[in-house]
């Protein structure tokens, strides 16, 4: 396992396995980096720290996928969307626990976690969205 202080995508998903939605916050300019990355892309500082995000937000847009790649075809049709988290950054992911025809742009959602997947590339525990 890589060092947990590194601001990597793999560590983002290690936290997801612990049901935590984490971002890297830049100590210099305050930018929240989701996904985390080793250097702040706003001010190029390396002074970052992990911060736990509130697992909720609003749905910005969505689609219902009918034709999927082989890995996902057995799940189709399924809904995916982009959520604006209450803390600011956007996150894409699947929308579960609601019939696709009832999904509305602007609806409030919570971030949940599917932790039954090992946390090593190319397999990561997925977060997903569900209605709040």
């Amino acid at each position, binding site marked *: 396992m890589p060092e947990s202080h590194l601001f990597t995508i793999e560590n983002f998903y290690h936290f997801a396995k612990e049901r935590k939605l984490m971002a890297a916050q830049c100590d210099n300019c305050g930018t929240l980096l989701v996904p985390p990355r080793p250097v702040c892309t706003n001010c190029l500082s390396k002074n970052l720290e992990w911060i736990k995000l509130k697992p909720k937000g609003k749905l910005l847009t969505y689609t219902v996928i009918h034709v999927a*790649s082989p*890995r996902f075809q057995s799940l189709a049709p399924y809904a995916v969307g982009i959520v604006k988290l209450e803390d600011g950054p956007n996150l894409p992911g699947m929308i579960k626990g609601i019939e696709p025809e009832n999904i509305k742009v602007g609806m409030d959602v919570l971030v949940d976690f599917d932790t039954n997947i090992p946390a090593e590339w190319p397999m990561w525990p997925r977060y997903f969205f569900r209605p709040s």
Partner: protein
Amino acid sequence: MTGKPLVSIVSAGLSKFGKMQGLYGRELFAQAAKEAFDRCPNLDPKKTVKALFVGHMGESYEHQGHTGAASANWAGLLPVPAMRTEAACASSGVALRCGVLAVLSGLYDVVMVGGVEKMTHRSTAEVTEFLAMASDFPFEQWHGITFPGLYALMATAHMHKYGTTEEQMAMVAVKNHGNGVLNPKAHMQKEITLEQALSSRVIAWPLKLFDCSLITDGASCLILTKPELANKFTDTPVHIIGSGHACDTIGLYERKELTTLNAGKLAGQEAYKMAKTTPNDIDVAEVHDCFTIAEIIAYEDLNFCKPGDGGKLVEEGITHIKGEIPVNTSGGLKSKGHPVGATGTAQAYEIYLQLTDQAEKRQVEDAEIGLSHNVGGSGATATVHIYKRG
């Protein structure tokens, strides 16, 4: 006065687009190159072409990388330095940009730029997976978001923000299929009705089968030279007077706005400024209609109309082949087809034909200035080029 010529196109070639069973990508490229050589008898390719830039998206399709050398080999251009450019569906838009830079640098007097992709021997599921590689793996592909899915996310956002309709998107498909009928090299040469488009099966709601471009095999190329040498090779060159190229986040979700492609806007602004032209000057345009919503967004990003009015532009017939700004006279990616690596220079090929009066049944009368707009992925790369009749 428009900007001064940066480089000149003295010839161009395009393979037939379609399901080219039994052919390798490099064989399609050789066909395109041969057409370009034959079109320009005053140019001895063996002696004159000094470098090759070739766009190619994916080695997965044919288990074949190293496309630069393979293309130069089959085109008969060895031992020229050849290199592959990769920027997903903008791979050959970027090859064209590299060719412009290479000639402007003074290192080469004459170069070939082009692109190639062989896709149709793969299943739709496989192609869906390979195309998705142009998007972010850990946050998009890993969460089941397909390529049509990304444009569907933009379509939903555009519909919600501006009231754009599924009918307006379908009108893009109907228009481009109508143009494809006039292009003997187009993959599909079949008119479709609005009703057919709207009732086709859902791929990623709100996008249906007829909102999506085609999985196609094909290759395209151009021969570029310095403007002062153009007349040595042809009496009818086409000058490139503007070149723009910009990038954006690999993930769609990181963008501030989901209803516009900022890279497309910036590339357009750079090209317009260099060409000293405005959208009103454009007589004919090829824009990146990988999905119908992408053409609507392209109108807005290129300032053919203001943000949110793209749907109305197609509805009012402005972008029809007989309209004020004919868009995608070739049939576009929608009907001519979208062999992803070949698309950028295939768009330039159509503009070259239009500005040299070789577009036959789809010729736009008195076309003097043209534009091509090529997008990679969900908009992480865009190139825009502006052309003028020589």
